């Protein structure tokens, strides 16, 4: 049983193999359209960075919500390095962006790659320090949590402004940075919901009350974030709709006028707001593993649909490659979650905060 779990060395080797495979597909002449890697990265950066950010946040505020899952979320830190590796592969693909042939002070190839790669590497280093110090019970882990959260906000803001918004250059929305790091936290809670699927039953045998309470906390957080997300989405959409400026409103109208973006819009509204809100409104549903894990999966699906909604009209892609990359990364996520005990062996992260 133990052999199926990854060690730290094995995990990093596998990440390198994964990055090399994706690089081979992108540049080995196997696909005719690039762009799938960018779409994949915009989604997985939110999922991975968000999951570690949720763990950092709960550690910082001494919160007991999802405390029993903190180690599993922190164990995802090696995947932060994978994001940096995959982003480096984007270097030859910057022609995808409309600003590439008319560079500006902010939007030019070297600066774009430099700042994003730096922020991704900083996020990895901060996440690694946080994870290792949390499990060893060493002092100053609060500082690492603060540093990680600052790098997380920086990195996700750059994801919003650079990776997504600049694909529709010169269209702007000042909300994008804040909107995407909030979404990343939402994704992190959804990952906690999925981790519950793996760990609920074994943990329930050891600490039934605590495990049930944490499951309810995940449900409650998913419900709360669905309202927060809807608020931010509405605040952004309302202003664009109300002002009705041609240079702003085209971003929405061209997406709603074509398929599959129109359907994707409904899908992400369902996944990110309507379903979590309606399903988890009742008290019982929040404590039901089936509901919480299904909603978590749907939230992640909604998040992916939203990335497609934003990027599809602006960025070409290869459907097969998109499916393959996301499938591989999903398997990698499950494998790391499954191996968390080996990746972060001393499980004091949740114990040292428990009163």
């Amino acid at each position, binding site marked *: 049983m133990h052999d199926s779990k990854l060690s730290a060395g094995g995990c990093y080797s596998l990440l390198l193999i994964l990055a090399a495979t994706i690089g081979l597909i992108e540049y080995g002449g196997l696909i005719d359209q690039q762009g799938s890697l960018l779409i994949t990265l915009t989604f997985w950066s939110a999922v991975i960075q968000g999951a570690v950010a949720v763990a950092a946040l709960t550690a910082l505020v001494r919160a007991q919500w999802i405390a029993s899952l903190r180690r599993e979320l922190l164990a995802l830190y090696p995947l932060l390095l994978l994001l940096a590796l995959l982003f480096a592969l984007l270097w030859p693909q910057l022609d995808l962006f409309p600003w590439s042939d008319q560079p500006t002070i902010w939007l030019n190839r070297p600066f774009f790659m430099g700042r994003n790669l730096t922020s991704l590497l900083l996020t990895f280093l901060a996440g690694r320090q946080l994870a290792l110090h949390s499990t060893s019970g060493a002092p100053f882990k609060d500082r690492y949590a603060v540093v990680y959260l600052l790098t997380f906000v920086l990195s996700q803001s750059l994801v919003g402004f650079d990776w997504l918004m600049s694909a529709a250059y010169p269209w702007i929305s*000042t909300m994008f940075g804040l909107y995407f790091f909030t979404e990343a936290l939402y994704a992190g809670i959804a990952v906690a919901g999925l981790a519950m699927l793996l760990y609920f039953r074994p943990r329930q045998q050891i600490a039934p009350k605590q495990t049930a309470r944490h499951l309810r906390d995940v449900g409650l957080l998913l419900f709360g974030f669905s309202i927060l997300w809807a608020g931010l989405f509405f605040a952004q959409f309302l202003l664009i709709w109300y002002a009705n400026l041609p240079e702003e409103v085209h971003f929405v109208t061209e997406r709603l006028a074509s398929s599959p973006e129109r359907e994707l819009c409904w899908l992400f509204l369902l996944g990110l707001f309507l379903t979590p809100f309606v399903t988890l409104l009742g008290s019982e549903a929040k404590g039901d593993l089936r509901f919480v894990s299904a909603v978590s999966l749907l939230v992640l699906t909604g998040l992916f649909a939203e990335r497609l909604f934003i990027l599809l009209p602006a960025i070409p892609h290869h459907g097969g490659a998109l499916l393959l990359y996301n499938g591989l990364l999903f398997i990698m996520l499950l494998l790391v979650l499954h191996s968390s005990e080996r990746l972060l062996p001393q499980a004091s992260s949740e114990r040292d905060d428990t009163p």
Partner: protein
Amino acid sequence: MQNSASAQQIEQDVLAAMSRPSRCYLACILLAGLLFLGGMALWGRQIALGMGVAGISHPVGWGVYITDFVFWVGIAHSGTLISAVLYIFRARFRTSFNRAAEAMTLFALMVAGLFPLIHLGRVWLAYFLFPYPNQRQLWVNFRSPLVWDVFAVSTYMLVSLVFFYIGLLPDLAIVARRRPGPVGKIYRLLTLGWVGSSQQWRHYAKLYFLLAAFATPLVASVHSIVSWDFAVSIVPGWHTTIFAPYFVAGAILSGTAMVITLVIPMRRLLRLEAYIPVTHIEAIAKILLLTSLIVSFAYIVEQGLAFYSGNLFEMEQFRFRALGDYRLLFWIMISCNSLLPMTLFVGRLRRNLAYLFVLSLLVNVGMWLERFVIVVTSLARDFDPYAWGNYTPSLTEIGITAGSFGLFFLLFLLFIKVLPVLSITELKER
């Protein structure tokens, strides 16, 4: 037995704050009262002489009065938010601040509610704001966020009042029990029949949680609507999608600062050091730091994207804010709201109450200036250079603003002598 004794002690200590006022308290009341009366007199003068006594004119038609409205609404919105959110998150340090924060919300809302009337000029026509059947077939413009404001702020006032009052019920019963005579009877009447039975406690806990859960998104929505007063327009510097969360974060920042401004002297004057420990004030200082970081993030994003967009009007607006005629106010705003709160990363400063008190005052100054900069600079430099023009507040506007602070502090000072400033029941639980 020991528990019972300490419960008695808590009651005694908290209710001692409601005893005979000291000279210092009376001096504060006098000062606040004079400020308030001065402001009222100036408002009377404005009603008598007309809006010409205010500095607002074309192109800056919104000046200090709208700044004051947004400032006080911001203060108001964070009080209930601090109380309700901390209750939902089961943060124990809430007990040191919740009553003062909730009271602050109500008083700030009362003050804020005056400013649309003051700004209106012909205040006797204020009822035009409400959609009522009339023979002239006048109807309010429901597409205007100003009307959304009327509904949002009045709904918020109602919910905040209920939240405050429900939280008070068990404490009112304690005051009624401890106060003999007709005063005690009045408090007894206000308890609405509270006897502290287990059934009442069960209902109370459910209702209080429900109200906290209801108030939290309401707060965010109300200040979002205030931000839309500006953002739904297409004026450069106002029409920006981040405005709603930016205003909400700004409201929490200013409200947290105001809570610190009120609680630190209150703690000392009313000898409540044992119930408001420094660790709790440090916790609220962390909230101040967090919201300051969010507000700073919004400053950077606004400025940065104005230049990213290449939009001439937006670029000129943000250049004007930082380097134009109002640059001094802009840089004071940045210093007070972004740079100085960063010092709270140092734990020693978070625990230094004198430093925190001064910092909270500066943050309040910075947040008032932030609203002033947003309101005035965008109107002063609109699209058409032929319509540009600066604005300087008149003495009447400054006096009315000072009067609003007088009213707010007067109400708060009266509150600490009439109602328990800390939640006695929650302190007993703690």
